[in-house]
């Protein structure tokens, strides 16, 4: 439905987008994931029309919308700071887009009530937005963007200003609502947990380029580049051939999910650090080759490991992931 074709953008001399391509299918939720400054928000704003592109194209159902004015695109947009109109009530906020479309009062009221119910805020119509909690404001912002039935919903770090527990709950609800309505959505975040929870596909961005695009499980399980692995917190990156483990390419990732304690394992070393995580220990060992490896050990299966303890581990072959060098011009983490 949405096609982004080789979009570039620079602010002055600083390139922000170096030519990105992306397809978003009808009803799919695509997440742009990356560190600050990678260009994800700029790309979102170009799609919305709030920013112009230096070159490239944005197509909706095959037609270019690059020069189409913002207010005619029929998209929805949610910001991190909610951006609710402070001088309007909840109801007036929600029906704003409907008013712009010229809907009559009765139809507006009905639709607004419907959407407020969808987000779980029935009865909040006459409230003053300044008196709402963070989570409630976020729901109003969502209702407001859903009310006019947009063709595409864009979300720019919508959960960024909420606390962790609320975030976890809301991200699941968000996905549920989006799927229920059948919307196509483009979601921007730097938080991988949010990304995993919400996305059908993740587009991992770095310094203005896509490093990897794929389903969350795929991206997590098989990162393709050094940047991708490091961004996801998978740091067991070793030169190919270490520990006698052959791999294609120059570097490989020894995926922590595949490392387990093994008396007969090929990799030996001593425990350098052991952090209690509640349900597991995150253990870092210094291998005999001098390279640190990090992996998790289920708490209910093992006693706490002592620093300095000698240990052996092994890794299943399918968890040895070959990595490409990070894309040219990209920043290192």
């Amino acid at each position, binding site marked *: 439905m949405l096609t982004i074709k080789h979009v570039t953008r620079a602010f002055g001399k600083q390139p922000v987008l170096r030519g990105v391509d992306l397809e978003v299918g009808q009803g799919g939720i695509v997440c742009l994931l990356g560190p600050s400054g990678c260009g994800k928000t700029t790309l979102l704003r170009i799609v919305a029309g709030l920013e112009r592109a230096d070159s490239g194209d944005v197509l909706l159902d095959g037609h270019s919308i690059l020069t189409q004015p913002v207010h005619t695109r029929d998209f929805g947009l949610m910001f991190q700071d909610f*951006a609710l109109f402070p001088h309007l009530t909840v109801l007036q906020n929600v029906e704003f887009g409907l008013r712009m479309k010229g809907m009559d009062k009765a139809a507006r009221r009905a639709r607004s009530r419907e959407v407020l119910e969808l987000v779980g805020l029935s009865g909040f119509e006459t409230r003053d937005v300044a008196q709402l909690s963070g989570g409630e404001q976020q729901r109003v912002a969502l209702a407001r963007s859903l009310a006019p039935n947009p063709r595409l919903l864009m979300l720019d770090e919508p959960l960024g200003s909420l606390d962790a527990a609320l975030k976890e709950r809301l991200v699941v609800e968000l996905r549920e609502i989006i799927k229920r309505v059948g919307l196509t959505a483009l979601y921007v975040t730097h938080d991988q947990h949010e990304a995993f929870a919400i996305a059908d596909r993740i587009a991992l961005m770095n310094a203005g380029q896509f490093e990897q695009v794929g389903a969350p499980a795929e991206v997590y399980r098989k990162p393709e580049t050094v940047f991708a692995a490091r961004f996801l917190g998978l740091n067991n990156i070793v030169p190919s051939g270490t520990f006698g483990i052959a791999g294609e390419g120059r570097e490989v990732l020894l995926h922590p999910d595949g490392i387990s304690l093994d008396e007969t394992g090929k990799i030996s070393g001593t425990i350098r650090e052991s952090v209690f995580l509640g349900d597991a220990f995150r253990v870092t060992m210094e291998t005999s080759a001098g390279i640190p490896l990090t992996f998790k050990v289920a708490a209910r299966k093992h006693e706490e490991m002592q620093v300095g303890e000698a240990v052996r581990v092994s890794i299943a072959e399918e968890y040895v992931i070959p990595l490409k060098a990070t894309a040219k011009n990209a920043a290192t983490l």
Partner: protein
Amino acid sequence: MDRDRSPLSQHRVGARLPLAGHVPAPFFASFKWLLVALPLLFLAGFFFYPLISIFGVSLAPEGQLDLSGFAEVITSPYYRDTLGFTVWQAALSTLLTLALALPGAYVFARFSFPGKSLLLSLATLPFVLPTVVVAAAFSALIGQNGVLNEGLMRLFGLSAPPIQLERTLTIILIVHVFYNYAIALRIISSYWANQSQRLEEVARVLGANGWRVWWEVRLPLLRPALLAAAVLVFIFTFTSFGVVLILGGPRFATLEVEIYRQATALFNLQVAAALSLVQVGLMFVLMIVYTGLQRQTRGALQSTRAVTRTPQTGREHTFVIANVGLMVILLLTPLAALALRSFTGDEGLTTSFYALLDSNPRGSVLFVPPIEAVGNSLRYALATTVLAVLLGMASAYLLNRRGARWLDAIFMLPLATSAVTLGFGFIIALDEPPLNLRTSAALIPLAHTLVAMPFVVRSVLPALRAISPSTRGAAQVLGASSFNVWRLIDLSLISRGLIVGATFAFTVSMGEFGASVFVVRPDAPTMPVVIFRLLGQPGTANYGQALAMSTILMAVCAVSFLLIERARTLGIGEF
């Protein structure tokens, strides 16, 4: 070591270490009564006493309650018309100023371009220029013999000057816009700049086109700032004196001008006092409205600093250039015309008008060469600066104590009272013992100090408030006596505020007109008064001298102003 005689014994560390909340006695503690008394005594003697005298003259001139003067003022159609005109011209001026300043405010809030901060500083210059200078500048620009008329006549071969704006309402309005444009622009644009751009972006995504964004989002959210700017400009134009007096001519009179005429030309003191009462009452109401609005604009929105950007599209470029052009034309050409005309004689460029300032053409014994007014102004300004700084500093210390909000309002009152009222109050109150100062030259610096003191307070108080008691405590523990604590800590931390306040006081005194016309001694006039007189006399020599002196005064004010602005951008003071 004998514990009682060691240098540290007076600061027995264990007993008097500054704890959180414990304020070591500052230097002025021993002079506490003096601290409180001086500024309050000053205000009581030179502000409240004259003000009460005005009440007295209007309501009980012969000692008994006699409301006839008051009644005459309220019922007479002539005075009602005067009040009506005052309100009418103020309302028109306000509307015009806001209409022009609003797009300018948008430019400053959203865009960045080269020379932006310089332009903003220059645009605020008119506000500190004396009214006589501005009157002279506009007459030099669009008067009968002004630059524009001369240029147009030459260009099109006309025999009569095409622009006839002298003594019309139009010129009064134009000058009011000149004065207040920058104030309105600053209030609106700083409020605007703190508004999140996201709101506009959301509105656009939701389907609002250009003008709907204005109507639905921008303007409603700007309302507090628009109202605050409107009320402030209304207050300033309502109390407009010099502009209406000089440029409006005999046909136009606002309340202030009427007070002046009744008191000095017609000697109708009771009526003048009654008019003053009405003026003070209305001003009081307006100030309350304004401070109420100001409170609203402070905390209204989440202050996300909007990012300014350079104009991108052709439309944006045109918009920015048009507004910058308007500012330059409106605000800078009159000043340029003034300077130019002061050097232009019948045969081209000349400095003869400046030379004339020092001369006594008719050799009259009683005549005072205008150049002496420069010396007078400087002397008065210096006296004012010293007085204002001392009293202002004492007041700031007084106000720095907790629970002094009502005191704060009292100290700001002179700022809210018009200069004409102050001057008028002086001449009717201070002509009898115990304060018989009517012929004293001291009246001028006293009047100027009343006007200048609030500026000093407003510049010093924030710096004072920022000094944490533990800084003083630390100095004390290290062995500094009270005086040294004050000298090394307080003084150095408030020194910038003092300098800004002093510069304000100096500039205010140099340009003060409204009170000065009442209390100045004929043989020792100030520059504004001399300019006023010269403008009122016929002949090119007198006119040229008025322009020359105005240019000098303008230069002095401009330099002081730029100094203040530089200090302000370093974050000093509350304005």
